[in-house]
């Protein structure tokens, strides 16, 4: 069937509108069950949330640590290369700590978790979808959003900021090693400057970003999982789309939030 140019535009627009509305609807449903679940005598099972927290949080510590640790090292070396020319090597510490806490810690942690956890969420829910397990839950009168998605959402909402804190510390540690052992800055002085220049705002803007990133990863992962169709190939496709979408949305959200903090002087 040949479509005219305008028909194609209309068709694309229609598909995208339905994707966006479905996605927002899923978000609303999830928040509904988080808020009204307990009062309707259907609270989220704490064991389910706890299981997810172990899987998402505790088991991601090592990979988050390594990614941010080495980024801290690279960042220190690259900035030292520039600062040496101006004789300002001292400021490596504040440069590393501030850029890690405000930007690289939250974003890199979120990207790592989107790859590790976002993919796992989509693959799990997607294969449940193609094996009729989601339909089975629905037929038993068990709401799949409340039963499957809310525990994942809550667990990630809590664990991603925690992992971000670990990432921040690891990044600062990486910078410290370069500063103290390579640039020969006095260890106490290095820590002192880090502490002096790092403000509360740097920490909480970073952590508030990671909360938003957690929502993006969980909801995109669950949405793509629930939308999966077409057997094993479908699960593979959905997982890829989930990770790519999360990556893009994380970067876009980061840009927007940085802009808000920058212009509003929050």
């Amino acid at each position, binding site marked *: 069937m040949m479509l005219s140019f305008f028909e194609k535009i209309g068709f694309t627009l229609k598909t995208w509108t339905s994707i966006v509305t479905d996605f927002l609807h899923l978000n609303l449903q999830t928040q509904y069950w988080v808020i009204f679940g307990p009062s309707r005598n259907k609270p989220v099972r704490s064991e389910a949330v706890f299981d997810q927290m172990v899987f998402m949080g505790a088991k991601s510590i090592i990979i988050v640590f390594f990614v941010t640790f080495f980024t801290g090292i690279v960042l220190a070396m690259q900035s030292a290369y520039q600062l040496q020319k101006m004789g300002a090597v001292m400021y490596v510490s504040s440069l590393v700590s501030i850029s890690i806490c405000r930007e690289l810690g939250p974003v890199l942690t979120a990207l790592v978790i989107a790859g590790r956890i976002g993919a796992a969420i989509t693959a799990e829910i997607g294969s449940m979808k193609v094996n*009729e397990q989601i*339909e089975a839950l629905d*037929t038993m009168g068990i709401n799949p959003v409340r039963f499957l998605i809310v525990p994942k959402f809550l667990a990630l909402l809590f664990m991603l900021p925690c992992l971000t804190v670990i990432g921040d510390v690891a990044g600062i540690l990486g910078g410290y090693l370069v500063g103290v052992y390579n640039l020969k800055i006095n260890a106490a002085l290095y820590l002192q400057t880090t502490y002096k220049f790092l403000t509360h705002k740097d920490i909480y803007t970073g952590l508030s970003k990671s909360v938003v990133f957690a929502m993006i990863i969980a909801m995109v992962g669950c949405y793509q999982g629930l939308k999966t169709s077409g057997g094993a190939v479908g699960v593979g496709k959905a997982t890829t789309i989930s990770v790519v979408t999360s990556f893009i949305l994380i970067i876009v959200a980061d840009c927007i939030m940085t802009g808000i903090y920058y212009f509003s002087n929050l």
Partner: protein
Amino acid sequence: MVSQEKKVAISVQNLTKSFDGRRVLDGVSLDIYQGEIFVILGGSGCGKSTLLRHMTGAIRPDAGKILFYGKDVTSLTEDEKEKVKRRFGMSFQSSALLDYLNVEDNVSLPLREHTQLDAKIIKVIVGMKLNLVGLHGFENLMPNMLSGGMKKRVGLARAIAMDPEVVFYDEPTSGLDPVVCAIVDKLIVDLSKKLLLTSIVVTHNMESVYRIADRVAMLHKGQVLEVGTPEQIKNSKNPIVQQFIKGEIEGPINYVE
């Protein structure tokens, strides 16, 4: 006379549904009586699974009604629907057990979600239900350790966990060897008699039909061709029905077109 007539449990009226412009159900009307085993028969893609999913409330129809004891279930709110769903049980073609839960947790899932019963009592109920399907003692196995027939039976135990009034079976014997088929068929008849269930079975296995059915409906291209006892269906004059139940290649049913 009226009092002797059987009570209609589910009444499907003029059900119509299209997917992407293709009409899958085209004005289906059926009455299913309380306590009978009603088999919906038909070839691949004739709309029989779609019909079943309408009855369980998984799909909304384009037009038509489904009455469950006189109440239209297609126009209920989500909360009302959930209440009706608790009176249903469903056994899925792929068993649809949650693969991260063991047999006991799978069967007890609806009880834990819908009732405030004590864990001990739930354990007793689960034991009872597993006993009914002949799987007592398999509580701690994971679904991937079970054979196809056992999975079907666990699925069945889960379907009857909440003491439903109606149980739906989607292809209960597909992919099973003839002996296990016979076992599952016997189980369907047994459960239906012991628990006074209304059973609705979707299948294309003719042997099963003769073993279990009280009444049969033959579906073809989204329409009901014939409803009757297995005997009546066997002696039907309709060439489509005859070709289907005998499994002949030549005839009015043509999958190639």
